[in-house]
Every structure is written in structure tokens, then in C-alpha cells.
């Protein structure tokens, strides 16, 4: 087609990309050891990093629904919950007696597919009654959906005990991977890898897989259809896009990302309970997407890292800071931490309304180059005038 790319430039870009990716790969590979080396509490930092990776998956999933298809979802954490409980129920001894043997503790990849599929089904369940809703109305319904899922998990211990209610499900075993139990330290090349390290690499790998799927989706025909629907549903329909199915697909795809993240979360924690899946969590994931840059994959990843890591950093920084400045504890560190965090988010949104790393589209939309437009309009007018004479 018409898009001609200078091949030398292309190769140079390619080389640069490869270099950047190489550096990132090395950094990520040694990160657990670096954290252990530089910080006394290296493992708690690594734990925060593991969670940040889970949040990246969640944020990328929500990005499909909110960023691409433009459907505001305030109950997204429900799919994380569905994935987590699916893993918990199929792997912990809690329901072992009633689950058919072939389905109990399935192979890792099968388990991930099941989690993605079950969450995807719930995505369609949420999507189908809300197809005609948009914006704030959709937000209210999805908010309700998120709460319904949580309340169900809280109360499905009676009359038949399925979810074990508010106590949650424990004794969830770690993932078995190619004959290895990720719950126990593994010796490799003379180095002992603990559970938290093993999970870091597992979650990292899944995270890369999800980033890859996200990128492919964005550039695909279906990705363009999502953007078209967000821009103008009637015109999209007239182009032959089945808006109903394409929207449901957005809900299902987004939900399945959440399901995978949830399953990893359950096996990493070894324990799930309804209180991990509150409205606040949904809002945090939405904040990651919006703050990072809706619709832009690198932006969303950045948003997820910042929103999930900053509170952890503040946790370590605030008490020494208070001691140094005032000499004693004035404010409860937990409150102060959230206060600073909230303020930081407000400042970022004021300074960069399109997010920290927005897509070029979003930037153009929020900062219209009025000068260029009027220039063009002027050109058009002159052009028309010339042709008209």
C-alpha cells in the first residue's frame, strides 16, 4: 500500500528496539537478585514487584474494554475474582470430594485456559445486558456487577458451601510446572530459587505473553473495529461491523486477561477471600489505565507499575521522613501514605490529562493543534474557491 518505509531507517529503528529490549530483558532477569542485594527487605520488594506484574495484566485487560472499545467498566476486579476462585476451587482440597478427578489440579496451561475461559464467560454475562449502555450508565451497571460477584463469594457458603464465605479458601497449592513444584525452592546451576523468585519469573512470562496478545489485538482488524465503535457506533455498523459481537468480544477478552491474572494471584497467595476484590481494587486498576495513558500499551504498563509500587515506596519513606522533619510520629503513616498518593494522582492528571504516556491519538485529541486545523480549513477554502471559479 502507500505507506512506504525507508528501509535503512527501518533497520536502524529495529536495531535500537532490539537493544532497548535486550537491556530490559537483562534488568528484568536480575531484578530479584538486585533487590535482594540492595535492600534489607528484598523479598518484600520482590513481592511488590510480583503484584505490580499482576496489575500490569489487569490493567492491560481493562485497557481493552476502556481504552480500545471505550466502555467504562467499574467492576473489572470481578473477573480477577472469578479467575482466582476458579483456580482455588479446582486446586485446593476444599471441593476435592465433589470435583471429578480429571478436573482436579489440572496442568498449568490447561488451568490458565480454564481461568481465561470462565472469566471470559462472565465477561459476556456482564456485556450482554449492557450493550445499549454507554459512559456513566454503563459504569453504574458494571459497578453493581463487581459488587454482586464479591457479595456472592462472601455468601455462597450456605446452603451449600461453595466459596467458604468470608473465611475464604486456603491451602491452595502452588503451580506444578514441568514436574517442578513452584512452592518449594529449586536448585539450578548451584543457585537456590525460592517460591517468590520462581513466581516472579512465572508471572513475568505470563505478563509478556499478555503484552504480546495486547499488541497483536491492537493492530488487528478487530482492534480497529473496537476503535471504530468507540468513535461512532452508527458509522461502524454501516461499515459492516457487528457492533454487538465486537463489543461482547471486548468484554470477553478483557475479562479473560483478568481471569489469568486472578488464577496466578490465587496460587501465589495460597489463599483467596472476598476482601481482595473490593470496589477500591477496580478503581485502582482503572486509575492505572487512565493515569498511564488510555489505549497505549506502554503507558498502561507504566501506570500499573507506578500506581502499584508508589504506595510501597511511600510505606518505607514516610516514617523516616516524619521522624526527620518533626522528630516524632504526627500522622498515622497509613493515612499519610494514601493522602500523598491521592495528591500525586491529582497532580498528574492536572499536568498530563491524557496520561503519563498517551497514544498519539489521545494526545492529539486533548491538545488540538488549532492552528494547523484553521490553516487547513483556510487551504480548503482557497482550494474550493479556485476550483469553483
Amino acid at each position, binding site marked *: 500500500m502507500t505507506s512506504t518505509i525507508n528501509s535503512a531507517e527501518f533497520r536502524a529503528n529495529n536495531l535500537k528496539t532490539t537493544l532497548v529490549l535486550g537491556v530490559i530483558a537483562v534488568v528484568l532477569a536480575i531484578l530479584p537478585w538486585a533487590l535482594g542485594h540492595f535492600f534489607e527487605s528484598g523479598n518484600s520488594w520482590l513481592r511488590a514487584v510480583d503484584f505490580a506484574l499482576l496489575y500490569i495484566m489487569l490493567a492491560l485487560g481493562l485497557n481493552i474494554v476502556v481504552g480500545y472499545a471505550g466502555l467504562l467498566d467499574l467492576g473489572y476486579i470481578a473477573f480477577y475474582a472469578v479467575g482466582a476462585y476458579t483456580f482455588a476451587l479446582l486446586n485446593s482440597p476444599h471441593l476435592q470430594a465433589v470435583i471429578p478427578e480429571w478436573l482436579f489440579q489440572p496442568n498449568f496451561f490447561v488451568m490458565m485456559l480454564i481461568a481465561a475461559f470462565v472469566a471470559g464467560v462472565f465477561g459476556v454475562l456482564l456485556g450482554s445486558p449492557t450493550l445499549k449502555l454507554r459512559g456513566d450508565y454503563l459504569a453504574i451497571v458494571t459497578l453493581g456487577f463487581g459488587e454482586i460477584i464479591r457479595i456472592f463469594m462472601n455468601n455462597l457458603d450456605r446452603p451449600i458451601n461453595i466459596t467458604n464465605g468470608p473465611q475464604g479458601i486456603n491451602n491452595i497449592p502452588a503451580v506444578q510446572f514441568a514436574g517442578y513444584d513452584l512452592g518449594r525452592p529449586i536448585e539450578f546451576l548451584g543457585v537456590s530459587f525460592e517460591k517468590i523468585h520462581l513466581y516472579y519469573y512465572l508471572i513475568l512470562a505470563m505478563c509478556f505473553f499478555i503484552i504480546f496478545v495486547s499488541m497483536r489485538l491492537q493492530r488487528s482488524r478487530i482492534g480497529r473495529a473496537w476503535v471504530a465503535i468507540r468513535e*461512532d457506533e452508527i458509522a461502524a455498523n454501516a461499515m459492516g461491523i457487528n457492533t454487538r459481537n465486537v463489543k461482547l468480544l471486548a468484554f470477553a477478552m478483557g475479562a479473560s486477561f483478568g481471569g489469568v491474572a486472578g488464577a496466578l494471584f490465587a496460587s501465589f497467595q495460597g489463599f483467596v477471600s472476598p476482601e481482595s476484590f473490593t470496589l477500591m481494587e477496580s478503581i485502582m486498576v482503572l486509575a492505572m489505565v487512565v493515569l498511564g495513558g488510555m489505549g497505549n500499551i506502554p503507558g498502561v504498563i507504566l501506570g500499573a507499575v507506578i500506581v502499584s509500587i508508589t504506595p510501597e515506596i511511600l510505606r518505607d519513606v514516610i516514617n523516616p521522613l516524619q521522624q526527620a522533619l518533626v522528630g516524632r510520629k504526627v500522622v498515622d503513616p497509613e493515612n499519610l501514605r494514601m493522602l500523598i498518593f491521592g495528591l500525586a494522582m491529582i497532580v498528574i492528571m492536572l499536568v498530563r490529562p491524557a496520561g503519563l504516556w498517551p497514544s498519539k491519538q489521545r494526545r*492529539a485529541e486533548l491538545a488540538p493543534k488549532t492552528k494547523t*486545523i484553521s490553516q487547513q480549513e483556510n487551504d480548503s477554502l482557497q482550494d474550493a474557491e479556485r476550483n469553483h471559479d
Partner: protein
Amino acid sequence: MTASANTLLEVKDLKVAYGGIHAVKGINLEVKEGELVALIGANGAGKTTTLKTLMGMVKPAGGEILFKNQSTAKIEAHDYVRHGLVMVPEGRGIFGRLTVEENLLMGAYWRDDKAQIANDLERVYQLFPRVKERYKQLAGTLSGGEQQMVAMGRALMSRPKLLLLDEPSMGLAPIIVQKIFEIIRMVAAEGVTMLLVEQNAKLALQTANRGYVMESGKVTFSDDAAALLSNEKVQQAYLGE
């Protein structure tokens, strides 16, 4: 009005009602292959409702719509394009956050003949060199006239058998409107059959082969465009003379 072999669209006694209000009260019209037909009338005459019903976005309360001698009643809205019924919506319906070229390619969303799509894209660029100049730009940053060109180009990418234009002049400066009608003539010269719904009666009739005049949900006049232009009553009511 009898359906001849080359009748593309035939509307028989079409009635549309919103709640209890009858917006379209039994109209007949037809479009033959190769024709450019104008549907004119004042605000609220039922033109846009008629068009929306033709595109399956509103369900008729009565009557029949035949496209290529087949009823369109069972076709889903998103399948119209596969049958060759394509609309350029009011306000152009451009996808502002896609580039110009991506917009054009959306027109070919339903097609999978890649080579032909590339050919059609070239054809559209030849027709609108201005659009080609801006192919990488986000469509939302174009001027109104340019957006209309993109909308028309996108519709052509769908390979329409019948192109429905909803108020193409709306919201544009008079000088741009002239330009838009030139584009419509260009597209007509390519052999595309069109039904043009327009408030600017004079320009529409000067451009079209035939015309229908709608007034409060009914067709009050239908004739050759030239005849309508010289019809005294039409002149008084719509042409401001």
C-alpha cells in the same frame, strides 16, 4: 410506478412511527441503477427518518422496502454493506482517532479481497488527491470538507451498489458545500447510484437526475430534477424564489 429491470431500490407505501407520532406516512419512491436521486424537504419532513429506515436502523410500521427486488426486512443493520447498501451518515461519521488511511480501510472492513482493496484505495486517492496528501494524519484533525471527502472515499471502499448520502452539506461553509457537490458529481460520474437527502434543495436538484419533495411525512412532488427546479410551487416553498 412500476418496477423495471434496472430498479435498484423500491419503496412501497413506507410508514414509520416513533411512539404515536407518524414521521413517515406512506411514501413511494424508487431509484434506478446509475441514477442520482435527490430527496429534499424542510426540517422535520421525515427525510432522515426515511433514510434511517432504508438502512435498517429504524423498523418501519408498514410498507415494504425492496433492494434488488428483495425485501430488506430481514437484513441486520451491519449486513447492509454486504448487500451493497452503504450510507454516509449525517455529520460524516468519521473515526477521528484513526488515520485517514485507516478510515478508508474501515470501508473495506467486510471485504477480504486484499488486492482489490489496494486497487480501490488507489482509486480513491486518485479521486481525492487532497485525501492522499493527508493519509497518515488523524482524521479528526482534518477540516470539515476534507472529512466529507474521507467519508465519501470510505463509502466507495465498501463498493456500494447504492450510496445513501445524509445531508452532506450540513455544517459546512457555502464555498465548501459547492466543493462537496462537485465531489458528488464526480462520484456519480464513476457510475455509482446515489440517493441524496439534502436540505439545500437548489443544489441538490441541480446535481440530481430526479427528485422527490417531502412534506410532513409525505411525498408531495416527484419529477425530473429540472422539472422540479422550474415548478412554481417547489420554487416558492424550497428554492426561495
